[in-house]
C-alpha cells in the first residue's frame, strides 16, 4: 500500500462519518497496523484482532 491507499481510506472514513457511521478494521497484519499508526489513521479507525471483537465494539 502506498499513499494512494491512505487517500482511499480517508475518503471512505469521510463518507462513513457523513452517514453517522463508524469505520473499524480487523485482521490487519503487523505491517498494515504499523502503517495505520504511522499515518495516524489509527486515531480514527479502531483496529481489532478479529471480526467478533470488531462487531462487539461496534455495538458498544
Amino acid at each position, binding site marked *: 500500500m502506498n*499513499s494512494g491507499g491512505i487517500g482511499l481510506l*480517508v*475518503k471512505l472514513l469521510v463518507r462513513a462519518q457523513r452517514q453517522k457511521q463508524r469505520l473499524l478494521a480487523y485482521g490487519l497484519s503487523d505491517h498494515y497496523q504499523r502503517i495505520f499508526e504511522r499515518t495516524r489513521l489509527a*486515531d480514527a479507525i479502531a483496529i481489532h484482532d478479529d471480526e467478533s471483537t470488531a462487531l462487539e465494539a461496534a455495538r458498544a
Partner: protein
Amino acid sequence: MDPTPSPTSRPGPAEGQWAEPIRAFHVADDGSGGDARSVEGRQLIGPLQGFGKLWQKTYRVRLEGATATPTEVIRAWKSDFGAFWPTSNRFHAPLAGITPGEVALISGKMPGGLTLSTGVYVIYSDDESFSYMNPEGHPWAGMITFSAEQRDGVTVAQVQLFIRAYDPLTEISMPMFGNRIEDRMWIHTLRAIAAHFGVVDAEVSKQIVLVDKKRQWRYFGNWRTSSALYAATRPFRRKAPVAAGSTADDS
C-alpha cells in the same frame, strides 16, 4: 549455514518503504540552515488532524519528448528536491537524503515579508514516488505525494496533496492568497522538473476535488501552535536571554 533467508523471513517488497511510527519530531540542528526549533517536540499530523475542509489537489506535467523514465524522474527529484522549488522557499534537505523517517526543515516567505519555518517528514518512499507528512503547526495537515508514471508512452510527473488547513487562520487565508501561493509553488516545481529533463514551457494541469466540506471544529485550537502565527508575532516577542556559551537567536 544457508546465507539465503527463507521466503517467510524475508521482508515483503513494501517493507522498509514506510517510515517507522513517530509521535513527536526530534531534530538535531545539523547546520543545514533550517530552524530545528520550529518542529522540535511537535507531533506528526495527517489529513484527519487538521481543522479545514479536506482537499485533494493534483498537479501534473507531461514530459513530452523527454526520454527519462519515471524512476529517473523521481531519482532526480529526490536528489535535489529544493532546487525545483521557487526561490522564495528553502528546503533544507536531510543529510541522509529523502528516505523514510527523515525530517527536512523548510522555510518560506509569507505575505508581508515574514518567514515561516516548519518541516516535513518523509513517510513513504519507493522508486516512483515519495510522500511527506507534516508536524503540528505546518499550515497543512495531510500528506503530499510526488510521483511519476508512464501514460500513453509519456512520462508524467505529479504532485498530489491530500490536505486540510491545519488551523482556522490558514483556513481563512486560503481563498485570500493561500490557494494562489500553493498553485504557484507546485506549478513552478513541475515546470522546473520538466525543464530539468529538457521540456521547456511545459503545461501543468490542475485538478481540485473537495473531499470533505466539513470543518473539524474539535481542532479549532490548532491556531495556538500555528507556524504562521508564530512567524507573524515573532517581531513582537522578546528575545530569550542568551546563556553563556550558547545562542538564542530568534530572528
